[in-house]
């Protein structure tokens, strides 16, 4: 976009032309009188607007000079577009800066989880997947063998290149199986969980007095290091790198996403402890983003966090994505690395420093139209999916997804949850022909397009299937991704740059600010059915290999 100042430079020119037009019309005596008056009125409005905006700009410059423009408040008499369109700020969010994101799209689906924990559903086996950790060699060094008894928090394997990071068992029990995939790579290390878990206990240093090295050492040895995620590229961070900032999103806007406030209930102490630890690990700040889209304030577990910077975000999906939030709080730039954590990971980290134990308890939401009873279940990291969904699925062909419908992974029922998953979605498969489906769809379907009357039924819950609703085409439409992307990134051009292996452009257009989940909504909306997440990941891997 042209910035404000540049736009005003054109104004005098426009006025000049309009004045010239008026005088010429008068001198010849021809032309419609009404048209002349209209032009005069427009010119007058423009002049007033110009005076207003120039003085407004001067005020902003002054505010910057005085140093009072630090909180990104709007020092202007003219409200920003986002303020006009973003709706009113909720009263509970008045104290901290509110980011109103006008772009985005909420996909309402049938099958959100009931706010209760079904205690009857229990997983028996749990797995740690080396494939979850990007950058880990496909065949890590195993520290246990099939048949070994392990405690919760006991290392199962380690990286051959950097053995400081330990990958630990989420539960205690017997190592049941080591599954291998292509080229003998290890895909799952499966532990048959005990009924009552026994934990490896660590000595916890006092956070206030401990050095960063001591904290890092405990996190590495306890296995909690694997909870950290480094951006760009979404990799496990190196223990040697100090992150510029740490970001945690306390809400998830993706379709049918679990309510993180519900999951965090009663874990206020662990969350606070986790934040305390993290703030000693970064050279910058711990940034917590809070949801300002609802009438009710987020729970006190989040709003009461101290020692971190709180940011309110109001907007539709993907406003809850941490990548979008980073873009608006402190964008990743240059060689800076930042860390991100999920709320569950933060709780586990806090628990470690409270009790000395690696407690990887997880509350998983079973969501989607194919579940008889969409609900929350309490289990541990890496739980077996078949155990969790047994007896709960409706008849018919359905697709099981670890995660949400936009960025989750399709899994077989014999599979295990990934280490940060907090949701299983089941939706019907859509492998059926549909007569004139592109023209007169019989079944309502979610869409961002205005050619469907969906905008009239804002709260309708859709029941979509996995049909592609069309075939893959070259990029034809423009501005489509950008209209639902609340980041200043030209997504389509970035995708083209990736396809053309243009490293300079990829970096310049902001590939390092993105992760697959951030472009998932664009991929959903894409008229040409392009696989944006796949393209983006290829680009990210290319960049990562380049260093």
């Amino acid at each position, binding site marked *: 976009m042209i910035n404000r100042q540049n736009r005003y430079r054109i104004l005098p020119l426009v006025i000049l032309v309009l004045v010239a037009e008026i005088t010429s019309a008068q001198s010849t005596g021809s*032309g419609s009188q009404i048209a002349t008056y209209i032009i005069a009125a427009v010119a007058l409005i423009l002049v007033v607007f110009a005076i207003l905006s120039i003085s407004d700009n001067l005020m902003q410059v002054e505010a910057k000079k005085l140093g009072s423009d630090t909180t990104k408040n709007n020092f202007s008499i003219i409200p920003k577009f986002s303020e006009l369109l973003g709706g009113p700020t909720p009263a509970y969010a008045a104290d901290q800066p509110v980011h109103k994101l006008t772009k985005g799209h909420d996909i309402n689906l049938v099958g959100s989880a009931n706010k209760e924990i079904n205690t009857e559903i229990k997983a028996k086996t749990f797995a740690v997947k080396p494939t979850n950790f990007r950058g880990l060699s496909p065949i890590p060094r195993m520290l246990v063998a099939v048949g070994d008894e392990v405690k919760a928090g006991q290392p199962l394997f380690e990286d051959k290149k950097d053995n400081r990071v330990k990958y630990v068992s989420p539960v205690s029990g017997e190592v049941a199986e080591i599954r291998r995939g292509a080229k003998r790579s290890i895909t799952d290390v499966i532990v048959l969980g005990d009924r009552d878990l026994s934990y490896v206990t660590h000595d916890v240093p006092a956070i206030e007095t401990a050095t960063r090295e001591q904290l890092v050492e405990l996190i590495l040895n306890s296995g909690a290091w694997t909870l950290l995620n480094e951006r760009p590229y979404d990799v496990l961070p190196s223990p040697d790198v100090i992150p510029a900032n740490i970001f945690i999103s306390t809400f998830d806007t993706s379709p049918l996403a679990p309510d993180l406030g519900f999951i965090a209930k009663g874990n206020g102490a662990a969350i606070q402890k986790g934040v305390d630890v993290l703030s000693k690990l970064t050279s910058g700040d711990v940034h917590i983003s809070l949801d300002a889209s609802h009438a009710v304030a987020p729970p006190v577990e989040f709003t009461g966090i101290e020692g971190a910077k709180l940011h309110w975000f109001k907007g539709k999906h993907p406003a809850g994505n941490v990548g979008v939030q980073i873009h608006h709080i402190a964008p990743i730039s240059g060689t800076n690395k930042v860390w991100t954590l999920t709320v569950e990971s933060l709780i586990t980290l806090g628990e470690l420093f409270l009790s000395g134990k690696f407690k990887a308890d997880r509350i998983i939401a079973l969501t989607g139209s194919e579940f008889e009873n969409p609900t929350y279940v309490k289990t541990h990291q890496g739980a077996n999916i078949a155990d969790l969904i047994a007896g709960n699925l409706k008849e018919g062909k359905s697709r099981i997804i670890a995660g949400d*419908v*936009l960025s989750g992974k399709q899994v077989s029922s014999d599979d295990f949850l990934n280490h940060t998953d907090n949701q299983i979605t089941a939706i019907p498969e*859509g*492998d059926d022909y549909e007569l004139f489906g592109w023209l007169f769809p019989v079944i309502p379907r979610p869409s961002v*397009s205005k050619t469907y009357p969906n905008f009239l039924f804002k709260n309708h819950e859709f029941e979509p299937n*996995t049909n592609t609703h069309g075939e893959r085409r070259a990029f*034809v439409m423009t501005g489509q991704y950008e209209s639902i992307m609340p980041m200043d990134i030209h997504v389509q051009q970035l995708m083209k740059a990736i396809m053309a292996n243009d490293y300079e452009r990829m970096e310049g257009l902001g590939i390092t600010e993105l992760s697959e989940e951030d472009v998932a909504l664009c991929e959903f909306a894409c008229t040409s059915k392009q696989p944006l997440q796949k393209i983006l990941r290829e680009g990210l891997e290319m960049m990562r290999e380049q260093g």
Partner: protein
Amino acid sequence: MGLIDFFEKIEHKEAKTTPAKIGKTAVDAVFTFLYSPKSTTSGGVHIRDGMDLKRTMFQVMIALQLCLAFGTYNIGHQHFVAMGQYMGFIEGFHLKLIHGVIKILPIFLVTHLVGLGIEIFFAAKKGHSVEEGFLVSGPLITLIMPPDVPLWMLAVAVAFAVIIGKEAFGGTGMNIWNVALLARVFIFFAYPTTISGDNVWVSGFETVAAGVTTEYGWMHSIFNVLFGWMGLDEFVSGGAVVNGFTGATPLALANQDGWEAVTSVYSPAQMWWGAIPGSIGETCKPLIILGMLFLIVRGIASWRIIVGAFLGAFLMGMLLNAWGATPFMTVPWYYHMWIGSMLFAIAFMATDPVTAASTNTGKWIYGFMIGFIGIIIRIVNPAYPEGWMLAILFLNTFSALIDHYVFESNMKKRLARA
């Protein structure tokens, strides 16, 4: 589900020879047109938006229908007005409509046979399905042709536009220039004597001069039989162009002697409602505006380009009004919308997403420049008093450059942060 089985059987057959491949591609195109494919998502998102390229293109086709209907009727209307018969717009309705249909159908069919034929051939060669681009290019080409365009010229032009303009670049979505306008510009530059001047805009006459008579063909006589049964007026050969009738478009008149010359022949209301000679689809302004609004409301056409183009055209119109060196320059800027193809070009040609600028800022600049340059060419070009096809093709060429600078500024901003 007999039909699906039939299609699936062909889908599963392996085509080895080129004709078989072309046949299979054609059948596949029909199949996906009738039935949404049963393909499911894999690897990325698990649900997909109900929007696809077929639906997108179909929106434009809907938006063009009113123009197409009016244009068809107007061919007949101009034809009879030239002979001084049925002067009222709805007098002789059936004759005007049938004459229009008889004139427009061959244009429509030739355009689609040639265009779709080439598309299917290339799709079969490349081994992918037929892309939907020509669903829109076809009707657009029909609508921007003069009613009496020789069909062989049309066929050559369409072939040129589709092969050189689109397939050479890789098909739908890859082309640099607007395909429909390329066809038009090819005809204009390859056969200038046949296509320009005052004779092509009114159908059914060799030249539009007083005393020239019209001869109806066998298609008209078939309908004559029908009309005879129903007791309606019939087509009568031998009707002559009346004295004082001019086939000149308002643009040609304005180019010669300014706005007074235009208004001495056509009233502003007549130009607004569209009962004037011109390219088939360009004459009726309210219907074009309806189509334009439809596309904007449905989110298909970019309102930024449209608004930008109007701003550019108005600004240039005012500037030239102020200069006023030639009679054409003194035509009031707000009347430029009334004459020629300005509205049609801005609504349906400039907004082609493939050839337009892709960024929001770029769209403003692109639209503005089209309006600005379009009026310059229209007024200053002595040879041909219309500028939109040239202005749009010119900006098509530069749209990538405009975007380039938008991207550069985005990249600079990001680098400055580091």
